[in-house]
């Protein structure tokens, strides 16, 4: 039995169709991330699971029970909000104890559970403080403490790290992941940051304007994006996309881009002449300086150093592409170089539908 099942879910706001026929199965103990650009419906979906938004059609099952009509307070889920939503007039202790007090738990139980959670989250010194006396990161931890104090099986996170500075975000990411491994609860996590999704998730659900573009592990999404949207959304710097046509060369299909013949993936299908989009991740753009005429010419327009690697921005047949490579050969702006691609590294998409034309997994 899955922990959370979403079946044919729809949500309408007057005339606006926010969630379109979404079906997802979330396994117990799984860390699932809902990711997508602003307005894609990920928060709406999360809030529908929480019971804070109503369902127009479809079903939501939590632990085998259909909860469409069950009010939020009876769903026994825990939620961490983007703005923490702490009770400003209660102490940290009382904030965390609130849900237990509502269930009329005995004092000793409350005390024990709150202190346990406080220990896990390093909040022991702060238990008597009020939220206004805490920093952003501390407040976020109190929000999480409030969630873990309860005995719920499903945790929901609504962009919890958006309000924190970059360094704190990285640190908290690790902490949340560690917490998940320790407690083992099913987690649904919403973010717009694909790096967070890639680093934290067991599985990622990529959403766009109310539909699910692709569900898969980070590797699946990265190596085998199902469509143009996922391909360009996942990965930073994003995948290079060049529009061309399928052509035949020496009996094998390839991509004709501005006269350049670019390799096709071996399992790609498509008729010659079909408008296609060729995709290559920056680390799969090979830059050469030995002047081999078999390769394609390009000119360097910018070089950025990112620690161990370099980002090289090239002008290739009128388009800008980005390559990521180790620091070895010296390169300079304006230098003429050659780029090459390998067939088993590149991607191919139908320009009209956006779908990947690569059928089998590699």
């Amino acid at each position, binding site marked *: 039995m899955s922990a959370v099942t979403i079946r044919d879910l729809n949500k309408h706001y007057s005339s606006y169709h926010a969630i379109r026929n979404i079906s997802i199965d979330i396994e117990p103990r799984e860390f699932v991330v809902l990711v997508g650009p602003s307005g894609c419906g990920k928060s709406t979906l999360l809030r529908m699971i929480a019971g804070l938004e109503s369902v127009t059609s479809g079903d939501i099952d939590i632990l085998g029970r259909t909860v469409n009509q069950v009010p939020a307070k009876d769903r026994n889920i825990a939620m961490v909000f983007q*703005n923490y939503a702490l009770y400003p007039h209660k102490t940290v202790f009382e904030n965390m104890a609130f849900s237990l007090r509502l269930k009329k738990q005995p004092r000793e139980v409350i005390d024990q559970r709150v202190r346990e959670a406080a220990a896990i989250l390093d909040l022991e010194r702060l238990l008597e403080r009020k939220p206004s006396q805490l920093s952003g990161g501390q407040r976020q931890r109190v929000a999480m403490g409030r969630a873990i104090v309860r005995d719920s099986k499903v945790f929901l996170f609504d962009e919890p790290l958006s309000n924190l500075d970059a360094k704190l975000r990285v640190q908290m990411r690790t902490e949340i992941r560690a917490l998940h491994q320790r407690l083992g609860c099913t987690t649904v996590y919403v973010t717009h940051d694909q790096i967070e999704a890639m680093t934290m998730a067991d599985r990622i659900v990529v959403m766009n304007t109310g539909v699910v573009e692709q569900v898969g592990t980070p590797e699946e999404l990265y190596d085998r994006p199902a469509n143009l949207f996922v391909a360009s959304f996942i990965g930073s710097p994003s995948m290079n996309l060049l529009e061309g046509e399928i052509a035949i060369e020496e009996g094998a299909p390839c991509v004709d881009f501005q006269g350049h013949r670019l390799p096709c993936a071996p399992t790609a299908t498509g008729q010659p002449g079909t408008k296609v989009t060729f995709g290559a991740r920056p680390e799969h753009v090979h830059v050469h300086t030995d002047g081999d005429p078999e390769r394609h010419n390009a000119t360097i327009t910018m070089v950025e150093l990112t620690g161990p690697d370099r980002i090289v921005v090239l002008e290739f047949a009128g388009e800008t592409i980005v390559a990521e490579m180790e620091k070895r050969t010296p390169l300079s702006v304006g230098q003429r170089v050659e780029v090459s691609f390998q067939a088993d590294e590149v991607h191919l998409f139908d320009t009209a539908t956006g779908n990947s034309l690569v059928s089998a997994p590699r």
Partner: protein
Amino acid sequence: MIGERWTAYWFVLPGTFLLLAILGFPAIASIVDSFGSVGSGGFGSAYLALLSDQRFLTASFNTALFVVCVVTLHIILGLAVALLLNADIPFKWFFRVVALLPWTVPDVIGGLIFRFMLDPLSGGVNAIAFRLQLMQGPYDWLGDPGWAMFSVIMAETWRGYPYPMLILLAGLQAIPKEQYEAAAIDGAGRWAIFTNVTLPNLMPMVLIAVVLDAIWQCRLFGMIFGMTNGGPGDATQNLSLFVYRQYFQFFETTYAASAAVVLAAVLLAVAIPYIRSTLREKS
């Protein structure tokens, strides 16, 4: 910047000047007058006479009773209506307008309307009560000291509640929605949400509403004047009516001024802590 500050002062000057002229000058004249002599006394004898005047003490008691009752009822009623108006119901704008209507009734006319409704022989209240068989014969509500005070309190509760209600409504709308959601997720029912989220967040506004409403009700004149004119006897006579009577009916300017100064002093005592607390918040 110094230049900007001077500009600010120039802008404030006309209003300040007008206030001083219209309010300040009569206020100071009254205060000076109030220290004059009354009867056979000397300087300040008016204040001494007030202390031994049973009517003044009764008026003070009536004012206190009236203010406490009305303000309490205003907060309760105002909060209830504010909660209703804050909810997401269809035609919210319509209910908001209707909820504000009592406030639009001018005070003396409102008093007269209520007096008419409570008239023993031709008033609506008696007619309805009789038809509902709640009473046998006509009852003289405003002729009984207790019922007259009760009626005046009820009338002003109805007429004046929109003012604190609006303050509380503004406070309600400022409560972040997420706190409600977090409380719901924590398992809180309606009452738990009200006591743990709504009320604590609303406390500063409740305080403001109480202070402002108390000051307003201390000064109340028109409604009571129209409704009972302080009667029967002086059962509903508050300090405003007392001052009015002294000044306009008995032509006792010094005595009236001293009673007015006492009322103003009490109101200042209530207002000053409020002003200080709001100034402290700003800084």
